[in-house]
């Protein structure tokens, strides 16, 4: 047997050189480069089941008509609109964290902003599904857009529903741009360290980013300006959604507090959703050293603040109803607390107004299982808040002769469950395809801290 040439022996001993790397790159890339585990596959399986159920019902509803939903006179905005508003609300955390906290230079946002932005996009997509589901005749959904047509007929720009179309579309596109701009440098990191289809994907999406000083400068400016644009946008979107209600004359809806009340509620529910999702993600992927308890504690402070605002709004609504002396308003609010929907109302008030107040205690703000449980309760409570506002408001209008009761039926609940599955599937795919932590931003902090540590070190010597 002839010995192999010395060179090939050396090649066998010496491993192929790995691309240069940093601990942060490795930690974050592990999340999306590792083969999906059993838990991930199981979750995707469950969600596919839920999505399949919801999609089947939707197809059946398109064939059969909106009559299969549980609408009954006088309630014709049911679980679909409730869930639409719920998802639009969830979508508010991402832009708040990325834009407003960026402008306030709150550095702690770095660990969570990417996942929150991704949730924003997916929540808006999910919300938009409901516009299609709710309109019934989906093949005429494009009537809402001002498109040139032979009848020279234009849309009515005085309608809040049209403002909503513009607000939600703008929000979708702007959030997408925000997420993508933040992703570009991280995609370049992935491009430099992957092979095969992933390299092709990240290479194309990173647009040849190299981190040159010219590019970073433009990137910094872009982030700043997008934050400046997104900050008023995020406040406007849920205000516009609230005007869908407040511009009508339904008792309990026709109120000037609606815009700030909805915006605070949206931020509240969005932060709760980020916590509900990120606590398990952090645990499963071992990201405790990047997303620390400090980050979670800061988010619970936001929950505490927004919970207090929302609870205050609940109180003010009741007070103004009594103080106004308007009988339909008073009656409707009496029915809210003690009428047919009392259970939904009290779930809303306790989950949103009472439980989050536990975060006054530092011990509970840093106790992860407590945070998880309370944030989940908030999600439930916020769904019921929209349920109470919409359904109770429509059920008890001016004339007792037209009062009615609505309960969502199985079809509607399957579509609601399908929407949760849709959101979860998109997020699970995102986890396995893109960096869920903004690598460059975390590295910026690490290198900055290191440089300063070196500096002070040198001074001592």
């Amino acid at each position, binding site marked *: 047997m002839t010995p192999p040439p010395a060179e090939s022996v050396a090649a066998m001993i010496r491993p192929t050189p790995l691309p240069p790397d940093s601990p942060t790159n490795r930690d974050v890339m592990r999340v999306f480069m590792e083969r999906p585990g059993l838990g991930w596959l199981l979750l995707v399986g469950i969600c596919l089941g839920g999505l399949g159920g919801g999609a089947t019902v939707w197809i059946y509803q398109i064939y059969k008509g909106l009559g299969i939903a549980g609408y009954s006179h006088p309630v014709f905005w049911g679980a679909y609109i409730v869930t639409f508003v719920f998802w639009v609300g969830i979508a508010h955390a991402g832009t708040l964290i990325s834009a407003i906290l960026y402008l306030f230079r709150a550095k702690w946002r770095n660990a969570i902003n990417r996942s929150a932005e991704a949730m924003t996009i997916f929540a808006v997509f999910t919300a938009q599904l409901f516009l299609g589901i709710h309109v019934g005749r989906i093949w005429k959904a494009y009537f809402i857009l001002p498109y040139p047509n032979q009848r020279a007929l234009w849309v009515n720009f005085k309608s809040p529903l049209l403002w909503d179309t513009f607000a939600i579309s703008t929000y979708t596109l702007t959030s997408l741009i925000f997420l993508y701009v933040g992703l570009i440098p991280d995609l370049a990191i992935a491009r430099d360290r992957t092979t095969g289809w992933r390299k092709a994907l990240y290479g194309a999406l990173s647009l040849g980013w190299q981190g*040159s000083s010219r590019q970073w400068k433009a990137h910094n400016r872009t982030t700043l300006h997008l934050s400046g644009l997104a900050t*008023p946008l995020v406040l406007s979107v849920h205000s516009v959604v609230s005007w869908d209600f407040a511009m009508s004359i339904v008792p309990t809806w026709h109120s000037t507090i609606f815009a700030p009340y909805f915006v605070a509620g949206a931020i509240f529910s969005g932060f709760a959703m980020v916590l509900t999702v990120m606590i398990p993600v952090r645990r499963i992927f071992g990201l405790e050293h990047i997303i620390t308890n400090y980050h979670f504690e800061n988010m619970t402070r936001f929950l505490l603040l927004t919970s207090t605002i929302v609870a205050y709004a609940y109180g003010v609504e009741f007070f103004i109803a009594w103080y106004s002396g308007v009988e339909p308003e008073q009656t409707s609010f009496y029915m809210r607390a003690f009428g047919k929907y009392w259970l939904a109302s009290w779930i809303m008030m306790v989950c949103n107004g009472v439980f989050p107040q536990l975060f006054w205690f530092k011990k509970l703000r840093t106790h992860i299982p407590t945070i998880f449980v309370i944030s989940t309760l908030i999600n439930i409570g916020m769904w019921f808040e929209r349920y109470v506002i919409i359904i109770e408001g429509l059920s008890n209008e001016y004339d007792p002769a037209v009062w009615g009761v609505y309960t969502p039926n199985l079809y509607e609940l399957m579509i609601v469950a399908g929407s949760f599955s849709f959101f979860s599937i998109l997020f699970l795919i995102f986890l396995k395809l893109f960096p869920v932590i903004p690598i460059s931003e975390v590295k910026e902090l690490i290198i900055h801290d290191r440089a300063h540590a070196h500096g002070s070190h040198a001074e001592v010597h």
Partner: protein
Amino acid sequence: MPTLVGIFDTPGGVAAAVTRLKGRGFDKLEVYSPAPFDEIEQAVDPKPSKVRLFTLAGGLTGVVTGYALTIWMSLNWPIVIGGKPYASIPPYTVIAFELTILFGGIFTLLGLLAVGRLPKVKLDPGYSARFSAEEFGVVVEVSDRDVAEVDGLLRANAAKEVSLVAA
């Protein structure tokens, strides 16, 4: 022309080296870094980025489009409501506001692409995957007779390695 790459560990080192190089008239340089750092930006080019012009143009286009669209369409298909003017500004402000943000955002993205010279099909020869790890690179194009001087300048300012790239 030969191209020299100096590898650095800290943004401070990069900034000092860039300042020296520019002081000696070596202007054909490019800095690669894993994250943005203010000291590098100040050393390389302290002028404010032109992206802001794009945002301004986008925002103005948006607000004009928003009002023009709504007002023209209401006049083109009048909806008669009790003798009120066909075009009413307060509700249209919502549309104009949203379009200001939308166009502003899209133009800002275009600004990033234009100012950052993206997309780029082929990466620069001086670029290396080390710069998307945690190291910094200063790439300088110099004439043959200056190679030794630039090499010395880079090393004197905390470059831990200096190498020649085949252009």
